[in-house]
């Protein structure tokens, strides 16, 4: 097990991503953040508060659960637990920043894109992730990346956040093969 990011590094990465979002979108007009359950939601909240510090404006944060849009129902054992999607605002003509912790195969992002489009027609969707570990299986890329992390498929990357896991770090570990 190796630690690849510590608390300070995570914080710096999120600060940079927040600045990049504001720079690319020229401020926070029409901007909304949508966090993918579970850790994307915590990261989206942090980006929201950083943007508030920088620009003094509060932007809305929604939560999306992609379970119902996954392509691996019937294969996955145990079945994923469905949790609530909470997007209490319209996405029509909004610039949506989708937030997730780790970008890997791209399949959950594909599911999230389909889900988002069921909520209306945003003017654009951009993707922010804390870790991009490669091995894409779909033509998907992130617009904002905290850290590019070359990995092998045998490894697993775990993001731990204080408000969720009690500890704040990113670790990489070898999966135990049977």
């Amino acid at each position, binding site marked *: 097990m190796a630690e690849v990011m510590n608390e300070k590094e995570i914080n710096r990465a999120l600060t940079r991503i927040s600045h990049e979002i504001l720079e690319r979108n020229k401020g926070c007009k029409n901007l909304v953040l949508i966090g993918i359950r579970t850790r994307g939601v915590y990261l989206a909240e942090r980006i929201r508060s950083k943007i508030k510090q920088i620009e003094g404006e509060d932007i809305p944060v929604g939560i999306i*659960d992609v379970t*119902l*849009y996954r392509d691996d*129902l*019937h294969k*996955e*054992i145990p*079945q994923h*637990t*469905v*949790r*609530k*999607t*909470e997007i209490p605002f319209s996405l029509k003509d909004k610039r949506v920043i989708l937030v997730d912790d780790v970008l890997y195969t791209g399949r959950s992002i594909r599911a999230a894109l*389909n*889900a988002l489009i*069921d*909520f*209306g027609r945003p003017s654009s969707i951009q993707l922010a992730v804390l870790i991009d570990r490669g091995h894409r299986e779909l033509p998907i890329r992130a617009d904002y990346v905290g850290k590019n992390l070359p990995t092998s498929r045998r490894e697993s990357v775990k993001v731990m956040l204080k408000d969720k896991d009690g500890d704040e770090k990113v670790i990489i570990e070898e999966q135990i093969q049977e």
Partner: protein
Amino acid sequence: MKRKHLLGIQGLDKKEILFILDTAESFREISKREIKKVPTLRGKTLINFFYEPSTRTRTSFEIAGKRLSADVINLSASGSSLVKGETLKDMAKNLEAMNPDILVIRHPCPGTPLFLANIMDCSIINAGDGACEHPTQALLDLFTIREKRGRLEGLKVAIIGDISHSRVARSNFHAMLKLGMKVSIAAPSTMIPPYLERFGVKVFNFMEEAIKDADVIMMLRIQLERQTNNLFPSIREYSRFFCLNPERLKMAKEDVLIMHPGPLNRGVEIDPEVADGPYSIILNQVSNGVAVRMAILYLLSGRSDDDAID
């Protein structure tokens, strides 16, 4: 969930019941979206086979299936070849030959869902079998009570009406007792099955005793179609003693919840003023029915084939 079928509440444990209710919470929001559809069960086939009349349950299952993108086929007894004398088993085998994934069955004969589960490969959901069970109704009742009260354990429920003929009551007894709720019933003695006290249900002959201090009053429909051997002298007399009217409502708790599985016999078991009044959550039951059935369809679809049946 590890189950393939939902045949009744009797076979579920407390944890499973609560898991279904929790999952249903997540599905409620879908019915409030502008696009009320998710692709989860795309490519799955759901057959709704109703051998008895039904508006709510059949529509609710159909909507639940469609909002999950399943292909839904509705069959009723009168439109099927059962009227030509085909046996239930032959019909089941023929339906199975078309590879459905889920069969929702309502049938007047208790045990039909289990019979089908034993001879068919698809998932079977009991949507009412005679006077035996109606599990999805009990689950949506619990979901609605929990939505309004925030908890289930310790709540007192009074169920009033024809208990012997009621599959809704039977499924609710199982569910409520498993979840630590207190159940009282009241009905004319001809409508109370024997040995009910052994279940842990309190039995009264006067409605007033049962509804005193109740958090929830669940009125059952007098099933006129099942009344063959004169269980009460007249509808008028029944309603004099067992109709939930505004006077009787005053004896209940101040914030009591009034439920009814529908369809209502207005003026027989429930006064219109009460049915449409501020304590009634009858239509909430119907709305929640869709979310609960979506959750069940989803949970039964995720199982692997070698799991044990109910």
